[in-house]
């Protein structure tokens, strides 16, 4: 706050012109670390702890969309930052485009020791360090859902569920479940398969009341089934109290989508040593365990989960047994316009 007040004072005194000029081309000192990520997604205490341990200042700036990070990187503004948060779906094109520094993973021993390699897969291993993850799965209210049980995606298009579903939006969230339901690759690039998935989704669409704000609609009782992120489910469960009637659909065979938020180092990052230290720091079991108290999301850090509070470990939104039956969103290359086209058709109706 001191910083803010000082700035405010400068403003009042009419010195702000100087402040503006001063912040123009100052080259960052060795003691600064610039991170571009989502707002309200990392603990202030964690940042303060890192600043104290390394005698540095961490500058956080925030993106409003995943595409922002990609824009910055591809436009060439990546080197302004030392670490950028993005998600697994973009990794392939970022690596192929040469936008990222290759990491020396020997400098992040905590990550090597603690992260589950099922999420830190070989193809992205040398270019990123995973932070937190989110599953997109199906949750229903046992009291109001017309079906007794939902065990696969095909249950979602049953006519009984007409007007019951709240869903996350986006072509690359919706089409994969249709493709899985039809027995295809969730990242299919085959146009016939995508067209078939579109037909499936038109039926799904008929059952959906609203896209977005799923947890709000669930809490208010507007829907009885939601296709949503695990984090949003945690809030809904929290809001509906201890004995809430929400259950995570006991899927038997269909895999669920897992998205991983991860840190990458843009090409030409200026404070690489400090960035390595930061990546290693957040992978420390205790540090991440403390962070999970404030941000109770799924986490790829096995040691941190082990060290986490019972409250986190027993969090009902993360208590389902098909956590490793997952698929990732992959780069679909030239098929992306096809997806977009069918997605538009779906939206227009």
């Amino acid at each position: 706050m001191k910083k803010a007040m000082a700035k405010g004072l400068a403003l009042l005194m009419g010195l702000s012109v100087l402040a503006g000029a001063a912040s123009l081309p100052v080259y960052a000192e060795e003691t600064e670390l610039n991170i571009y990520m989502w707002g309200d997604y990392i603990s202030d205490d964690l940042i303060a702890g890192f600043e104290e341990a390394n005698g540095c200042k961490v500058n956080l700036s925030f993106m409003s969309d995943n595409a922002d990070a990609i824009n910055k990187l591809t436009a060439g503004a990546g080197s302004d930052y030392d670490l950028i948060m993005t998600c697994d779906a973009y990794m392939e094109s970022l690596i192929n485009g040469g936008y990222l520094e290759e990491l020396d993973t020997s400098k992040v021993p905590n990550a090597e020791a603690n992260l589950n390699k099922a999420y830190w897969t070989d193809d992205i291993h040398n270019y990123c360090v995973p932070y937190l993850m989110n599953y997109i799965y199906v949750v229903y209210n046992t009291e109001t859902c017309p079906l007794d049980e939902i065990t696969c995606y095909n249950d979602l298009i049953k006519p009984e569920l007409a007007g019951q579903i709240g869903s996350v939006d986006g072509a690359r969230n919706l089409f994969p479940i249709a493709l899985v339901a039809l027995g295809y690759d969730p990242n299919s690039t085959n146009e016939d398969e995508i067209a078939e998935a579109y037909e499936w989704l038109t039926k799904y669409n008929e059952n959906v009341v609203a896209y977005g704000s799923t947890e709000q609609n669930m809490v208010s009782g507007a829907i009885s089934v939601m296709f949503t992120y695990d984090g949003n489910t945690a809030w809904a469960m929290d809001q509906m109290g201890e004995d809430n009637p929400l259950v995570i659909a006991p899927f038997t065979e269909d895999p669920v989508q897992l998205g991983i938020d991860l840190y990458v180092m843009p090409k030409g990052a200026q404070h690489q040593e400090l960035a390595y230290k930061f990546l290693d720091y957040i992978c420390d079991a205790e540090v991440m365990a403390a962070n999970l108290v404030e941000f109770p999301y799924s986490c790829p850090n096995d040691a941190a989960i082990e060290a986490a509070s019972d409250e986190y470990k027993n969090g009902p939104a993360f208590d389902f047994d098909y956590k490793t039956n997952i698929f990732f969103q992959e780069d679909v290359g030239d098929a992306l316009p096809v997806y977009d086209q069918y997605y538009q058709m779906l939206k227009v109706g």
Partner: protein
Amino acid sequence: MTEQNLKRVRKKRRLAFLADLYAVLMYTLFYIPVAVMIVFSFNDAKRNYSWEGFTTGWYGKLFSFSNTTLWDALVYSLIIAVLATVISTVIGVLGGIGLKKFEFRTKKFINMMIYVPIIVPEIVLAVAMLIIFITVGIKMGMGTILIGHCTFCIPYAVVTIKGRISGDNETLEEASMDLGANRIQTFVRVTIPSIMPGIMSAAFLSFTLSIDDVVMSNMLAGASQSTLPVLILSLNRTGLSGDVNALTTVMIVCMVAGLLVQSLIRRLISKRRAKEGALLPQEEG
């Protein structure tokens, strides 16, 4: 009163009632979201899904200044907005007067080009500027955001001020110089006061445009700090907490208070002028 007249009066009343109803409906539509936002700033819930009970806790949290991210972003936004307003208004005054009063060869062209930043979608301007800044090697930061904001504030300021200058001003200026004032005195004591309402609108417009801008602020932001609108959009991913509502409520209160103070001052000034019986034509806002 004849039958016909009575009918006419009734019809008029009915129409007036409809007009009032229409106005009430319109204003309700405008302000319901704002009202809901303000009400939810008193909501005793971690996430603003449903009403859980009354609390002033979010204001307590806000004014304990523990959430430095939010305040830093607000201060950053305010500094940029004030600077953008000052720069745009000054250039707007000079540009507006220049384009209205003087004849020169490229006048038509400049007059037309001034609308380009207004017409061109902001995202296009933002991307173009991002590319230029990167090519030239300017580091992103407050300076680049400020330049970005000025590019769309200046045209609005020029257009607003230009529209305010009328033939009357010229007569007054000639009179002033006839009475022995030089050009600078005339500019400061006659021209500026006579277009003051235009200058004020231009300033308010620039400030508003700058403080709630997302596109430019997002594209041209540097590594050290985000503006408030960008931060709020980013928070929206995981759900906004009550302190954002509290902060925006405080901003609304400040703006409404500012408007009231402004109109109060204006009333005082016009009263004083009336008392003094000034011969100068009085400006109405």
